[in-house]
C-alpha cells in the first residue's frame, strides 16, 4: 500500500473488528474509504433509505435510534454502524444522527461483503444479534493465544533507526537512551529492491541489518575497533524479518531457525518494530510462578515486603499481555495466600508450634480468588475447640499481629472494618464460629449483614482445612433455606447501583464534566459479586469464585436462559477494566486505585463497559423483583 494512507490505516487498525484483520484486508479497507463530515445535529442515516456503505466514526459522536424513536446506542471514535442495514436488505434499520461534529469513514458495501467472506471474525462481529459482551470477551481470550496472536501485537514502539554513515559512538549513545537493545541500520542509496522500502513521507531506504548491543561488544569493543567506525561497516548484511501479520509462534520459530535473538517486524517491506526473544518468551510464561517461588524463599517479613514491586510488575505484564481477569486475579490471589502462608511459617518458627490446631481463614476477594492490585486484608482465625483463651490466646494474638502487620507492609492494607484475626471477636474456636453463622442466617438484619457479608466468601489460607470446610458446608446448606436471610442479603446487594449514564455524559458534555471519575469497584464489580453471592447462596452452591458461582447458578432454573452467561461476561469486562486501569496507574507511577476516568478508557472499550453496566442494572431489577422488600420495612433482628 502507498505509505500516504498509513495515517488512516493506523486508526482503523486500532479498533475492532479491524484490529484483527490481516494487513492485506486492512489495506483494502483504507484504500477504498470515502470520507464525509457531519455537523452536530445533522442526520447521517435516515430510516429506510438505501445504504451502500459501513460507517466508521473517525472522530465525534453519533446516536443510533430504533425505528420507534427510542435511543438504541451512542457511539464514539472507532465505532461502526450501518452493518445491520447492510446485512438486512441494504436499507437503514437504525437511523443515525451526529451529536457532535463528526467525521465518518464510509466503507463501500463491496469491501464489506468481501471482509465478511474472507474473515470469519469480522463476519462474527457484524453478524446480526450477536451479543456484544460475548464477542468482546471472546476476542480478548483469543488474543492471548500464541498460535493466533499476530506478531504486530508485540511491537510497542517504532524501531530505532541509524543511517549507515552514523558512527558506532553515536549509535551506541542513542541505544543507551532507549529501553531497546537493538537498532536497525539503513542507507539511503541501495540497489536491492527486496530490502528497500519507502517511509511515511515516500523516502526510499534500504535496510542493511540489525545491530544489537551484543554486536557492539563483540565487533567494536572486543576487536578494538574505533568508535568512529560507521555502523554500516559493523552491521552484517543479513536482515532477519517477519511480516507483521504472522503469528507470535512463527516469529519464535524464525528466531530459532536463524539463531538470532532480535527480529525486525515488517509491514510489506517497511520495518515497523523490533522484537526480542524475551518479548516472545515473556508472552508465554506466567511470571507469577517465579514470584511465588521467591516468596517462599524469603527469611524475614522485611524481605517479603521488598517483593511488592515484583508483584505489581508481574500483574501489569499479565494484563498487558492480554490475560483474562480470572487468570490475573487468580494469580494475584495465589500470591496473596503465599504471603499469608509464609508470614505464618515465619511467625511459627519464632513463636514455636501452635498450642492447638488452627485454620487461618481468608475472606472477601482473596477467598473468591478475585484479588486486584488494590486490596485490603480480610481474615480471621478458626481455632480448635480445645482452645482455652486464658492459656492460648496470647499466642494466637501475637500470631495474628505478625500476619496482619506483615501483610500491611506487603501492600495489603489493614481492614478498615476491623475484620482481621487481630480482633478477638474474629479469633474464636470452631463452635463459636458455627454459632455466629447460625445467628446471621436465622436472625438476619441488613445493617448487621452489610458489615459481615464479607464472611460469606470464605476459604482456607493456611492450617486445618477441615475447620473451614465445616463452615462452608453450614453456609451452603442453611443460607438457601432462609428467605429472610436471602432478602436481607438481596437488599444489601441493591445498595449500590451502576452508573448507566456515565459515558453518555462524557460524550455529550464537553465542558466541566471531564474531571468526573467513577469507582468501578463500588459501582461495578462489588454490586455484581454481591448479587451473584445471593443467587449462589439461594441455590446451595459451595463455590467461592464468582465465575464458578455463575456456572452453578446456570445449572438451576433460577435465572432466565443466558442470563448467567451475560453476567459472567459483564463481570469479566468490569474486572478487566479495573485491572487495566490499575496497570496504567502503576506504569505511570501513581498509587493504583479503582477510580476510572472516562477519558482514560479507550473509546473501543466504552461500549463494552456500558453494556456491562446495563447487564448489572437489569440483574438488579430482577433481584428486586425476586426478593421484594418486606412491607413496613425490614424485620428487625436482635441487636448485635
Amino acid at each position, binding site marked *: 500500500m502507498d505509505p*500516504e*494512507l498509513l495515517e488512516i490505516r493506523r486508526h482503523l487498525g486500532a479498533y475492532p473488528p479491524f484490529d484483527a484483520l490481516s494487513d492485506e484486508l486492512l489495506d483494502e479497507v483504507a484504500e477504498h474509504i470515502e470520507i464525509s463530515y457531519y455537523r452536530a445535529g445533522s442526520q447521517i442515516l435516515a430510516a429506510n433509505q438505501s445504504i451502500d456503505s459501513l460507517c466508521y466514526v473517525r*472522530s*465525534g459522536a453519533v446516536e443510533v435510534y430504533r425505528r420507534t424513536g427510542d435511543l438504541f446506542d451512542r457511539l464514539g471514535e472507532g465505532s461502526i454502524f450501518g452493518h445491520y442495514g447492510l446485512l438486512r436488505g441494504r436499507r437503514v434499520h437504525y437511523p443515525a444522527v451526529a451529536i457532535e*461534529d463528526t*467525521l465518518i469513514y464510509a466503507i463501500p458495501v463491496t469491501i464489506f461483503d468481501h471482509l465478511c467472506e474472507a474473515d470469519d471474525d469480522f463476519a462474527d462481529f457484524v453478524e446480526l444479534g450477536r451479543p456484544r459482551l460475548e464477542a468482546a470477551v471472546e476476542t480478548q481470550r483469543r488474543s492471548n493465544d500464541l498460535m493466533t496472536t499476530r506478531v504486530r501485537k508485540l511491537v510497542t514502539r517504532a524501531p530505532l533507526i541509524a543511517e549507515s554513515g552514523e558512527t558506532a559512538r553515536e549509535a551506541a549513545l542513542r541505544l543507551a537512551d532507549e529501553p531497546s537493545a537493538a537498532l536497525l541500520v539503513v542507507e*539511503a542509496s541501495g540497489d536491492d529492491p527486496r530490502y528497500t522500502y519507502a517511509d511515511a*513521507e*515516500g523516502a526510499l531506504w534500504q535496510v542493511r541489518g540489525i545491530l544489537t548491543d551484543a554486536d557492539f561488544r563483540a565487533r567494536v569493543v572486543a576487536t578494538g575497533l574505533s568508535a568512529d567506525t560507521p555502523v554500516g561497516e559493523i552491521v552484517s548484511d543479513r536482515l532477519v524479518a517477519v511480516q507483521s501479520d504472522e503469528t507470535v509462534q512463527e516469529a519464535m520459530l524464525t528466531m530459532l531457525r536463524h539463531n538470532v535473538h532480535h527480529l525486525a517486524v515488517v509491514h510489506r517491506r517497511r520495518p515497523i518494530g523490533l522484537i526480542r526473544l524475551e518479548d516472545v518468551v515473556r508472552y508465554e510464561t506466567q511470571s507469577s510462578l517465579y514470584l511465588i517461588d521467591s516468596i517462599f524463599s524469603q527469611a524475614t517479613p522485611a524481605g517479603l515486603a521488598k517483593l511488592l514491586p515484583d508483584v505489581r510488575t508481574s500483574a501489569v505484564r499479565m494484563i498487558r499481555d492480554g490475560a483474562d481477569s480470572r487468570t490475573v486475579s487468580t494469580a494475584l490471589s495465589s500470591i496473596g495466600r503465599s504471603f499469608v502462608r509464609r508470614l505464618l511459617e515465619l511467625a511459627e518458627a519464632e513463636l514455636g508450634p501452635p498450642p492447638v490446631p488452627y485454620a487461618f481463614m481468608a475472606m472477601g476477594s482473596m477467598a473468591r480468588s478475585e484479588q486486584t492490585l488494590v486490596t485490603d486484608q480480610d481474615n480471621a482465625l478458626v481455632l480448635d475447640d480445645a482452645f482455652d483463651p486464658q492459656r492460648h490466646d496470647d499466642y494466637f494474638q501475637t500470631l495474628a499481629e505478625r500476619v496482619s502487620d506483615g501483610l500491611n507492609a506487603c501492600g495489603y492494607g489493614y481492614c478498615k472494618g476491623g475484620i482481621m484475626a487481630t480482633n478477638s471477636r474474629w479469633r474464636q474456636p470452631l463452635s463459636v464460629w458455627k454459632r455466629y453463622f447460625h445467628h446471621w442466617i436465622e436472625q438476619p438484619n441488613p445493617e448487621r449483614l452489610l458489615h459481615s457479608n464479607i464472611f460469606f466468601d470464605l476459604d482456607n489460607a493456611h492450617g486445618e482445612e477441615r475447620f473451614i470446610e465445616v463452615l462452608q458446608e453450614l453456609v451452603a446448606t442453611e443460607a438457601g433455606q432462609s428467605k429472610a436471610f436471602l432478602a436481607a442479603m438481596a437488599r444489601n446487594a441493591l445498595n449500590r447501583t451502576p452508573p448507566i449514564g456515565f459515558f453518555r455524559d462524557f460524550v455529550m458534555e464537553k465542558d466541566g464534566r471531564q474531571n468526573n471519575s467513577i469507582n468501578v469497584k463500588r459501582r461495578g464489580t462489588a454490586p455484581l459479586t454481591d448479587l451473584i453471592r445471593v443467587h449462589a447462596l439461594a441455590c446451595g452452591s459451595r463455590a467461592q469464585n464468582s465465575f464458578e458461582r455463575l456456572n452453578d447458578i446456570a445449572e438451576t432454573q433460577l435465572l432466565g436462559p443466558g442470563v448467567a452467561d451475560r453476567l459472567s461476561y459483564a463481570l469479566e469486562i468490569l474486572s478487566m477494566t479495573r485491572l487495566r486501569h490499575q496497570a496504567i496507574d502503576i506504569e505511570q507511577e501513581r498509587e493504583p486505585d479503582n477510580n476510572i476516568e472516562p477519558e482514560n478508557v479507550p473509546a473501543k472499550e466504552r461500549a463494552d463497559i456500558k453494556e456491562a453496566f446495563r447487564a448489572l442494572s437489569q440483574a438488579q431489577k430482577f433481584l428486586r423483583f425476586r426478593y421484594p422488600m418486606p412491607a413496613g420495612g425490614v424485620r428487625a433482628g436482635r441487636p448485635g
Partner: protein
Amino acid sequence: MRTKSEALGGGWSGWLKDQTRRAAAPALRAFYERFPANASQSIGETPLVALDLETSGLDPRRHAILSIGVVPFDLNGISIARRRYWILRPPRGFSGGSVAYHHITHADTEQAPDFAEILPDLLDALAGRLPVVHYHPIERGFLERAVRQRGQGPFRFPLIDTMAIEARRYRQRWRMGLRRLLGKPPISIRLNDSRARYNLPAYEGHQAVIDAIGTAELLQAQIQHHYSRSTAIGDLWV
C-alpha cells in the same frame, strides 16, 4: 444589476473564457474549457479537487515542487481510491534544509519524473473540478512557475482557499483588535489548528495526500458551519 457573486467572480470568469481561446498548448486549453467557470454555480453542484504541494522552500523563484497530492471530492464525500500522488525531480536539485520537514530526500527525487512528464496526468486529475487548497499563494505561485518554466502557460485559475475562509472569520480586523485588547494571541489558522475548531482529528501533516485529504475535510466542515450547499462558488474562490 450585478449580483454579488458576479462582482466577486466576474474577473475570473472572464479570464477563464479568455484562456480557452488563447492558451497555446492544447492540454491547457482543454483544462480551461472544462474548468467550472460560472461564478454563480452552487458549491453543492460543483465537483471539487483538493490539492497540496510539498516544496523545498517558500519562494517559487528559488525553490521547487517536491511532491503533489490530489484528491477529488464533493460536499458528499472524499474518495480515497481516486487520490493521485507524484514525487518530482526538481530542475536544479534543492537545498537540504527542508528535508527534515517533508522527509523527501535527494535519493528519492533523483529517479523521479520531471514536472513536464506528469503535467498531463495532473491536468487530467484536475479536469472539470474546482481546486481547493490551504494557503493558496504556494500552490498558485509554484504551479504557475513550473508550467511557465517548461515553455507553457500562463497557468492561473480560481481556487478555494480554506485558510482564507478561516482568515475571513477569525482574522477580521475588529476581532483581532478585540483579542489583542483582551491579551489573547491571534487565533491560529494553520491547517491542523483550523481543523481542531471543527472537531476534525489531528493528522500527521506534511505529506501531500494527507494534507489534501485534510483540506477537503476542512472545506466540508466550513461549508456546513458557515455557508450552505447553495452558496455560489464565486463567493468562495480567490
